[in-house]
């Protein structure tokens, strides 16, 4: 390595700190809501108004906020988990089947069927919510978690099939043929060839589907009536309607609503970041 490049690299390293500073400053403001959420969740209103910015003395932490939040939010979290997990798994299974159909052979009519899916990419979801409500009513699905699960499964189809088809088509044909020789049915081929090969893309899609289902609140707000089946979104909207706001309790509830995913995120961080990056490229 020549002296010139060495010094250039050295200069580059030295000049990294302004970038770090910029990034940290931006991230600092970006993450400020979380800081506020955490520190306020430990205060009562009085402590908060007296000292809005800094965390309270740990000896004066108001754990009662957390008890309240737990009683309020945990059932909603449980319901959200039911809906999001079911919707994600269902969506991927159904989409995998359909993608296999499109990717494996060019069957008669498959072009027309494919365009049936592609057209939907142009359909903005905004126009759909009103008639969708009528459809759910007709199917007797209002005020059930099933409605949210099925909508989650149906809503992710086009996107997932589109990506999965491309992916399955890239799998070498010999693998399928070898499996076919062994007398594997299509279902078995899907199990033995496609699924093991498409781990990363399935992971990516699963994360995206899970997040979109987890974050949904307009549909649940319209569909759900009974508080015992509320998902997080609806629960939080109802909490926001209180006249007298105990900010500590509210923030503790917010925090608690975020915790399940944060825990899972801690374990699967790499999968998440990679999945979202990949999803970002594809999307």
């Amino acid at each position, binding site marked *: 390595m020549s002296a010139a490049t060495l010094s250039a690299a050295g200069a580059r390293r030295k000049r990294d700190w302004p970038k770090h500073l910029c990034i940290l400053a931006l991230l600092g403001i970006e993450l400020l809501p979380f800081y506020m959420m955490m520190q306020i969740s430990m205060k009562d209103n009085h402590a908060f108004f007296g000292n809005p910015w800094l965390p309270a003395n740990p000896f004066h932490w108001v754990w009662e906020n957390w008890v309240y939040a737990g009683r309020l939010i945990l059932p909603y979290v449980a319901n959200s988990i039911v809906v999001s997990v079911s919707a994600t798994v269902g969506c991927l299974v159904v989409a995998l089947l359909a993608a296999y159909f499109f990717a494996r052979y060019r069957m008669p009519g498959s072009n027309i069927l494919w365009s049936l899916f592609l057209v939907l990419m142009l359909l903005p979801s905004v126009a759909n919510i009103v008639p969708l409500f009528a459809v759910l009513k007709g199917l007797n699905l209002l005020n059930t978690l099933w409605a949210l699960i099925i909508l989650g499964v149906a809503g992710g189809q086009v996107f997932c099939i589109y990506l999965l088809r491309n992916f399955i088509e890239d799998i070498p044909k010999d693998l399928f043929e070898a499996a076919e020789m062994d007398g594997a049915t299509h279902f078995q081929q899907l199990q033995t060839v496609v699924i093991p090969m498409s781990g990363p893309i399935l992971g990516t899609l699963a994360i995206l589907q899970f997040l979109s289902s987890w974050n949904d609140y307009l549909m649940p707000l319209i569909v759900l009536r009974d508080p015992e089946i509320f998902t997080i979104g609806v629960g939080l*909207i109802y909490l926001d309607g209180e006249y007298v706001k105990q900010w500590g309790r509210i923030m503790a509830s917010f925090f608690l609503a975020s915790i399940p995913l944060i825990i899972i995120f801690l*374990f699967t961080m790499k999968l998440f970041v990679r999945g979202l990056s990949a999803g970002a490229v594809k999307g």
Partner: protein
Amino acid sequence: MREKILNTIGIGLLAVCFLIAVVRIVFIRYQSKSAPDGKQRVELRIAHWQLENGPRDAFEALAREYNQLNPHVNVVQIPIPERIYGNWLVTQLVGGTPPDLIQLGNGMTDERLARFFMPLSELADLPNPHNKGTPFEGKPLRDTFADGMQGGYNPNLVEFYGVPISGKSIRMFYNLDLLRQITGSERLPKTYDELIALCKRTREYAAEKHVRMVPIAGSRYNGGILMQALFTSQTQKLRERITPTGILITPASTLADGLFHNKWSLDSPDARSGLALMREVAQYMQPGFMQLLRDDAMLLFVQRGALMITTGSWDATSIRQESPFRIGVGAIPYPTADHPVYGRFTYGSIADAEGSSAGTVFGITRASKHPKEARDFLQFLGSVRGGQIWTDNSGWIPSVMGTRTPAQAVPFLPETNGYVAGFSYLGEGGPDVGRVVDSNLYSLVGSYGSVDQFVSETRQSYRAAWISDLQRNRRIQADILQRSDTQVASFLWLARKHPENAESQRKADLALQGADASERTFSFTDLVLNSQP
């Protein structure tokens, strides 16, 4: 490798949570179907938007008590935030999944009432089985309410649709501890002059002690209530002058007629005097209070940032529970008739209108799967026992006669000693008048504003707004008239077919009266609009 293990743990955790959650939800659904005594379990759901402190506890207590009486019936309340109540209501009604009992008012229209709710007129005439052993045993339900159940009556549809379970009134709330610190006594102001003196004293006190404090906690909501009340004191005589027959309520069309024929305007001395009152009292709230919301004013008061707040009896329990100080409650201090400036236009303090003050009305939806139980629970709510549980736990004033008002609710019982109110500055005109006045109000209450500025800015569009509101009223009244015509026809037909049935005869009479009234209302509105110069 390490990543794989971590991923597996993460996904495993999720799977475990999922299983627990599924078991839980299945269990809940199963539990709600089976009953302890073997009978088919009935779940009654009751929706309301009373998220103030109190009512939710009261419904809890009522549900518990009712469950004791009927072990197979579980009453579950669904508290809905006020701001989404309208959407929620339409969604549930149209979706066919409304709860059995719904609070009426917010987002309700005659059409929705007629289409989705059960008429309760028959129920209103029946004695309340839950009143056995009380002085009201055998009396029709409607006669056991302080307001004759008028809160649940819909004159346009000529039917009862709901049962009102509480009363309401507007009061001035004081921070007694602060009041003692400032004035040395706990005497509440009785007249307007005393109120203003107290406000001035509070100002001085805040300046002396260097505390950030305003005399009155204001917001669009709370400030509006107080200013409106004061304005109506100045239009008492004006209202009498333009209401020829001397009836107690002056309809919008009469006010409009007066306005069109220059019997009054915002320039009238009475109205200007009312506006001056509004401006004067507004100076003792936070500047810019018209931009703040109900919770903001409430918080300011509870945090000792203000000595007083004007609000309704419905906020009393919240205020009492949230304030770390003692609360005093008094009527709004109005100018007296001998007041040197404002006395000219007023008779004196305004009485709480009796009858029209009942609120928290509940109706039964047609989609209810358990109409029998829903009716019975509604009767329970309207019984002496139910009313007592309601008022004891919510701290709200009862609407059922024979209930004991808890001590903390006594200051909110209707004050009948006083005079009838005039009309408000928003005019009973309608949304357009409201909007015009509202959007110029800053020039009346703002620090740079004045009565002159407000009047000159509003004058232009005020009349046009009255006309467009009146036109809208005429349209609505025409619709009602049309509907009542069909109703009269069908009731008359029924009455003729079953002359022996007194009920159908009575209904036909009522419908005829109603149609007559609608007809009169409509033609008068029409006349006013046509004769407008």
